[in-house]
């Protein structure tokens, strides 16, 4: 009941509504198009802004508070892809490559979902730890590596590991997140204040614009929904709920505040759509992109945005 209220509140936020507008635009075949360059610019902005704020906060945090959550996050990044892979192979009967590809996506993380849950909590005035962006960075990569290792072992392939690793670590999302964090950390709150009219105040508005575009992107994948089948649709909804609950629980064990645990849960529940697809396409080309892109973008992302976030907030009540 309280969760339903939160869902309603969340659904009526400009961000979620903008996502819906994007979906509608695609469904009515509007000529509205978001230039790719603007999409790229907005995502650079979001990642850098998340990093900057996180870094500035981190510079005021006792690092002793930080190791437990960091470790738990790493644990999430290692365990989720393994669990997901097993489920996909056993229950879903997917090919090795496809199962590993999906495992990489669900173990990794979506920065926009992070931005959305952060905005949700701020709107409700619920406090959370300032170092959360660090956890986004920690969670992004391990799952991808583990899933790729699983695939290579199962398929008996070798391959250019060094190159894949470099590409992952130098990938733009990690670079901007970590880079932004370092900038924020070194220049501190005073530095952040100087650029706040760009990187702080307009954050929600820019996120709204970005979600308009995400709605169009997700909706273009809708026609693949039939192709991916019922199992993947169910997976794209249930796996996040499982991962989200797991993340909240680990967050509570790690001593995070309730808000922090909701964020960690949402991170666990979210599926990557930047770093993972790029790495998987290169390292596991035989996996069918329709599966992982559709599940991540057309099922899990909208689910988390609209229902998952308030749901995880509600679920956190059981742990606090």
């Amino acid at each position, binding site marked *: 009941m309280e969760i339903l209220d939160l869902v309603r509140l969340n659904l009526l936020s400009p961000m979620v509504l903008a996502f819906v507008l994007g979906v509608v635009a695609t469904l009515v075949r509007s000529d509205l198009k978001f230039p*790719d360059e603007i999409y790229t610019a907005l995502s650079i902005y979001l990642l850098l802004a998340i990093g900057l704020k996180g870094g500035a906060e981190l510079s005021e945090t006792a690092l002793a508070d930080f190791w437990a959550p960091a470790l738990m996050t790493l644990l999430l990044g290692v365990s989720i892809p393994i669990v997901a892979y097993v489920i996909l192979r056993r229950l879903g009967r997917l090919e090795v490559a496809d199962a590993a590809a999906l495992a990489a996506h669900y173990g990794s993380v979506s920065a926009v979902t992070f931005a959305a849950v952060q905005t949700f909590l701020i709107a409700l005035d619920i406090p959370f730890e300032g170092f959360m962006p660090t956890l986004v960075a920690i969670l992004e990569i391990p799952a991808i590596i583990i899933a790729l290792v699983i695939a290579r072992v199962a398929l008996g392939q070798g391959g250019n590991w060094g190159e894949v690793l470099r590409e992952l670590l130098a990938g733009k999302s990690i670079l901007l997140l970590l880079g932004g964090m370092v900038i924020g950390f070194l220049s501190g709150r005073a530095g952040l204040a100087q650029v706040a009219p760009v990187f702080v105040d307009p954050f929600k508005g820019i996120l709204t614009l970005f979600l308009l575009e995400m709605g169009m*992107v997700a909706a273009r994948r809708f026609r693949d929904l039939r192709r991916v089948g019922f199992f993947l649709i169910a997976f794209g909804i249930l796996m996040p709920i499982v991962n989200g609950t797991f993340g909240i629980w680990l967050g509570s064990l790690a001593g995070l505040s309730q808000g922090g645990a909701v964020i960690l849960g949402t991170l666990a529940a979210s599926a990557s759509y930047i770093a993972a*697809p790029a790495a998987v396409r290169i390292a596991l080309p*035989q996996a069918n992109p329709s599966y992982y892109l559709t599940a991540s973008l057309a099922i899990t992302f909208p689910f988390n945005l609209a229902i998952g976030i308030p749901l995880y907030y509600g679920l956190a009540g059981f742990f606090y």
Partner: protein
Amino acid sequence: MPTTKLKLVTIISETILEDRIIRELKQLGVRGYTVSGEVRGEGTRGLPTVDFGGQNIRIETLVNPELATQIMAYIAEHYFADYAVIVYTLDAEVIRSEKYL
């Protein structure tokens, strides 16, 4: 002004392969190339795009006929199975052919 007949090899591929294909073309002996980003298309694979930027790129390179054949064979062998890539050649005439050979 003497002209020389060369082949213009065109590769249309997923954006994500750009750096790799160009590295490999150079290893095959290509001396110059031109890339047009942000092309889009459809073929028999549907839309396997993995990033949101322009889905495909077009790489064009002027080479001698033997190298053209080699490039086509190379691309066929390494990319046709798993990636959305096509390759074709056209007959081109250039001046200053030593530049391309």
